[in-house]
């Protein structure tokens, strides 16, 4: 087990900078998830920790030892890839023991370690099979087994669940989390799925365009997003953003509706333009507040999701981003075309600077 320290790391391909100076401290035994949209540099960062990509600037240290110029095999890490990267011509047992055999580990020790890993992951009956005879979930478990057998300082996961179907993904999520609780190995995990990040991580690193937007515990990010990107990325369905301005003791939307601020008016901000952020589940039916037309009602059984179009906006493509999402726990008889009035819970609302995106 080990800590990982990433200091001002940069990566460029020719003139294009993919990662623009990133610093993360990962404690011993921590489960850290790098999350962000495609192309934000999260996988590249993971591959730099692994040693599969060269580091253009800054340092990566594992257990306080800078590993920038160390080949992957000397870093004492194990990696699980999105497409499993199993050795197709080897049995499951051979796949799992390959690293140990390369190190000339004693046969008895190899058998013991493979059996232990197979026991943890329930792979016992599959040891003599070949990867192509296994289902996606089983293959992913073998890939994890291969990592466990190594008993490394750090586990690296590169979108390990992306190739699995939705149901299996939920199951494997639990298994990975359980495995981490059992082995307590420092883990860095990359995903684009914010639900995976929220459910599994001790600490989430939100990345976007090669920079870190925010680092924090899952619920911290949810409750106190540092900027509009994090606010919009974390949480599903995404947070509603309503443009307008701060005035008096409240917020005035562009079409003149008043939204409450609950007395949390930032100083010297009268008339200042701002974006009002409210999560879909923080609206309630009200007598005053925003008047909006119901566009779509999507019942899921446990909750109902509604897409609303504020009155005064047109149905065109341009106004699509003005639409609001409302999630309510109870069922509703609302029909498309009806007009409802909803008000946000001021204590749970957020205000952002429309130019910088930063939280006010």
């Amino acid at each position, binding site marked *: 087990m080990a800590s990982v320290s990433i200091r001002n790391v940069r990566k460029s391909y020719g003139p294009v900078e993919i990662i623009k100076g990133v610093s993360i401290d990962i404690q011993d035994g921590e489960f850290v998830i790098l999350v962000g949209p495609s192309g934000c540099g999260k996988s590249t960062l993971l591959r730099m920790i*692994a*040693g*599969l990509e060269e580091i253009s600037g800054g340092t990566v240290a594992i257990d306080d030892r800078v590993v920038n110029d160390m*080949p*992957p*095999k000397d870093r004492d*890490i*194990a*990696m699980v*890839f999105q*497409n*499993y*990267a*199993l*050795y*197709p*011509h080897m049995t499951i047992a051979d796949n799992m023991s*390959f*690293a140990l055999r*390369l*190190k000339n580990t004693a046969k008895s020790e190899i058998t013991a370690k493979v059996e232990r890993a197979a026991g943890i992951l329930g792979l016992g009956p599959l040891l003599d*099979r*070949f990867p*192509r*005879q296994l289902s996606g979930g089983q293959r992913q478990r073998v890939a994890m087994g*291969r990592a466990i057998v*190594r008993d490394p300082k750090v586990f690296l996961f590169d979108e390990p669940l992306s190739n699995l179907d939705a149901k299996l993904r939920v199951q494997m999520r639990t298994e990975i989390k359980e495995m981490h609780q059992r082995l307590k190995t420092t883990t860095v995990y990359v995903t684009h799925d914010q639900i995976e990040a929220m459910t599994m991580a001790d600490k989430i690193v939100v990345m976007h365009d090669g920079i870190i937007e925010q680092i924090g515990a899952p619920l911290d990010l949810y409750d106190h997003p540092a900027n509009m990107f994090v606010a919009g990325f974390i949480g599903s369905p995404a947070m509603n953003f309503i443009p307008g301005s701060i005035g008096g003791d409240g917020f005035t939307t562009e079409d003149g509706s008043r939204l409450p601020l609950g007395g949390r008016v930032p100083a010297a901000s009268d008339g200042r333009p701002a974006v009002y952020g409210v999560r879909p589940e923080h609206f309630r039916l009200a007598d005053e507040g925003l008047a909006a037309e119901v566009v779509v009602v999507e019942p899921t059984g446990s909750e109902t999701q509604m897409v609303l179009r504020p009155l005064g906006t047109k149905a065109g493509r341009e106004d699509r981003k003005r639409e609001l999402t409302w999630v309510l726990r109870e069922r509703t008889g609302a029909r498309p075309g009806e007009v409802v009035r909803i008000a946000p819970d001021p204590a749970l609302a957020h205000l952002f600077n429309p130019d910088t995106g930063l939280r006010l």
Partner: protein
Amino acid sequence: MSILTSSDRVAGAASVGRTKRLRPSYWPFVVPALVVVVGVIVFPWVFTLWMSAMEWRIGEEQRFVGLQNYVRLATDVRFLEAMGHTLVYTALSVVAPLVLGTAAALAFNTKLPARGLLRGIFVMPMMATPVAIALVWTMMFHPQLGVLNYLLSLVGIGPLQWVYHPSTVILSLVLVETWQWTPLVMLIVLGGLASLPTEPYESAQIDGATAWQRFRYLTLPMIKPFLMVAVIIRSIDALKSFDILYTITQGGPGTASETINLYLYSVAFTYYDIGYGSAIAVVFFVLIILLSLVLLHLRQRSAWNSGDGK
């Protein structure tokens, strides 16, 4: 190659036949193919078998002699020697192109500058006519006037007798065969290399495999099915090789490079002993079938990417 897979096809056709009976009205469509197969493949073979049981010299009476031709073969020193030459020539003509072709494929699989152009040049020998190649090499092999001995003299070796001496003639012929057919192996293996997944290599890097270990434990086993294809094609080609041998040495000096094919040719078309020649052809055919079966069996065992891998 059609011989090799015919059993699979027959099995496949039989299982279809059980479930879907062919109606009589479909049969006319099969007739043209049937006529061609019977006329070109089945009839010549049956006729060869029949001829091999006859004493049949051109211009003389034909006489049924049963297995006598085969008994004669077993004690024919020239035939047994030809068999030895054939096996040595085939083994070397498979192994040398296989090793060199694999090495070339590995080289062409890297990011070489001007890779396409070099690959094109490399493949050219394969496209040339064997007789033309044979004539060029005959000139190069010439002990006094040939370019090979000239080149060797520059580094102080030689002169060698090449195809003019019994001890070097087979090696020299293998050199020509290797020169012409290494590109084929290269193309087959290159295709195999291109089809390999890249992720296991990254994972092996993390697992601690050196470049040599990655080749030994990943690349080699994974391209084994392709190597086996190359071995099968090369074995059959080398076994029945005729044009290059006939053009360069006609089996000489003496009979030092006479293969079964060349011996068969002189028995049948120089001595006009058709019956005995047919017996040689039958033995040769059985030899090729046996070798093909062995190779096919090995190939199926080497295929990690198909079947259920028992």
